[in-house]
């Protein structure tokens, strides 16, 4: 390995043809054929991904032991009175913040660094021609090129998501003050990280295939990830579950939400259930105004914790359906058109 190139010719010239001291060492490896090639091409990204997964899972598992102790001694919430909320936030707030950051940014990073260059770099360097003329059909090449990275990405995000969900579930009433919908927990647990990873990686692959340049494809994938994440949180996420409402007297105490519920909206309403905006009759002669409209109740709309799994699977289903669509286009194009 340390031989310089100037020493190379002499050493090679004197070496008998068979013994090959500088010949390629036939190391025994797990992977062969196309999977080996795909692994070799993307080994840096895939190794970082595997390492991140291992470290992340270990860290989450380690923290869970302490967390269980904490919940045992302090109670699992909800933190309505006392210092439980502050104590928990001091002890584990950072962990859950960085955890959700990792789980929400990992799909974007995979889309940008694994998906976008996957085929674009081959087109850019012309190596599509090299592989296209080896003794493997286009179909097998596409299957390996798409299959191996996507399988590793799915495996890693599924593992991380499972361990993070396992860490979060007992403390769910305390983490982010019990807000599981808008705080990033929704995108960090259950099937959502896997679905986002698949969606963004496949979008990156498709974009790279169209652009045929790795770096522009990576930039495009990043922008696409930002746009879809805004659309997701602004338009789609809240519609995944139907809102539930609880009404209570206008001047009474409330609302009495079930533990783990996320408060979405507040209204005022008539006895018949007709809703008015929360700001109705808050200026001037408020009493007369309310009497005129017949407002007697306040209504709070919320999503219940029990709806979370259903909402996540519905969201993941939508993302996976889009993924399948884009993937089908990629496979079709790779098969039919010269790259």
């Amino acid at each position, binding site marked *: 390995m340390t031989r310089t190139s100037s020493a190379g010719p002499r050493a090679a010239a004197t070496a008998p043809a068979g013994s090959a001291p500088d010949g390629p060492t036939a190391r025994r490896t797990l992977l062969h054929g196309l999977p080996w090639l795909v692994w070799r091409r993307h080994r840096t990204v895939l190794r970082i991904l595997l390492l991140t997964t291992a470290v992340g899972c270990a860290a989450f598992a380690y923290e869970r032991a302490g967390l269980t102790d904490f919940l045992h001694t302090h109670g699992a919430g909800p933190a309505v009175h006392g210092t439980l909320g502050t104590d928990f936030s001091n002890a584990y707030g950072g962990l859950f913040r960085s955890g959700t950051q990792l789980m929400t940014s990992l799909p974007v990073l995979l889309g940008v660094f694994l998906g976008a260059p996957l085929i674009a770099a081959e087109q850019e360097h012309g*190596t599509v021609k090299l592989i296209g*003329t080896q003794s*493997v059909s286009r179909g097998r090449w596409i299957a390996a090129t798409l299959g191996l990275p996507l399988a590793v990405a799915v495996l890693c995000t599924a593992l991380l998501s499972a361990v993070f969900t396992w860490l979060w579930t007992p403390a769910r009433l305390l983490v982010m003050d019990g807000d599981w919908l808008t705080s990033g927990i929704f995108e960090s647990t259950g099937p959502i990280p896997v679905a986002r990873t698949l969606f963004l990686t496949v979008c990156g692959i498709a974009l790279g295939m169209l652009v045929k340049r790795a770096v522009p494809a990576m930039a495009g994938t990043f922008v696409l990830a930002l746009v879809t994440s805004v659309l997701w949180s602004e338009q789609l996420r809240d519609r995944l579950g139907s809102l539930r409402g609880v009404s209570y007297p206008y001047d009474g105490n409330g609302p009495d939400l079930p533990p783990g519920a996320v408060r979405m909206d507040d209204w005022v309403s008539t006895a018949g259930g007709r809703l008015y905006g929360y700001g109705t009759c808050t200026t001037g002669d408020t009493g007369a105004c309310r009497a005129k409209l017949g407002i007697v109740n306040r209504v709070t709309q919320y999503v219940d914790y029990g709806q979370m799994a259903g909402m996540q699977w519905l969201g993941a289903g939508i993302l996976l359906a889009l993924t399948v669509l884009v993937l089908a286009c990629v496979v079709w194009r790779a098969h039919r058109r010269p790259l």
Partner: protein
Amino acid sequence: MSDPSPWAIEAEGLGKKYRGGWALRDCSFRLPAGHICALVGPNGAGKSTFLGTATRLVQPTTGTLKLFGVPVSDPAVLERIAFLAQDKPLYPRFTVAETLRLGRELNPRWDQALAERIVRSGNVPFTARIGTLSGGQRTRVAFALAFGKRPELLLLDEPMSDLDPLARHELSGLLMAEAAEHGTTVLMSSHMLSEMEVMCDYLLVLAEGRLRMAGQTEELIPAHLLVTGVAEGDDGVPEELRRRHTVIEARITGRQFSALIRPGGPVPDGWETLAPSMEEVLLGYLRSPDAPGLIADEARLDGPGKAAA
């Protein structure tokens, strides 16, 4: 493989239309196995398109192409051919050893010893990354990858174009030696006409997407004559010359004309005749795309085929 077709390439009505028009049109010929064949033509003549159709990188719009009797639409032809694209694409981050491993992993007929020998004879270190190699070393590794595949047909797209004269000489020698040793049929496109003359014994000439000439050099080149004489007539070329022979190209210098012809009979004593070199014939055809083409009987699809088989 049990039925070795005597024809390395059989093209029938092969054509490829891009948005800009036909890059290759109505191309019909066959190439007997075992030849070193030059694919000649000006830029944009359809050489790369033809090589693309033969390597499954380009889907022909019309016609069929068979390699050793196997249609190119069948992925099984990939085992029998090797292709060296003009820019010799290799993975720049792979080491030489890993590049050879790529060949070993993806080709069932891989000959590791042969590939290693080609690399070693150029003193290319196996641990070097492809991106750090010189143009000649890189081409050598690409050759090793191509020959290690043990192809029956080796397709090369301007293999020597980016090499210095020394590396060109060295790699031409390597190509000829390996092709001769394994009986590989070689089809290479090139602009280096003088080099082609030394290396090749078969010719395919393309111009404007059409086949202009096909056949063995020793049959095609002697079928031409360089004629010089006193200019006469409107454009300087004697009427008799046009009537009795096929004029490929004619030029007037002063009171003299010189023409490249395919003689249709004996040439009168008044004119001086010379046997042209391959380069002269090729240049004549390349300069005159409208001149009638010449396809040798052997290269015709309806030629004396079954006899050879």
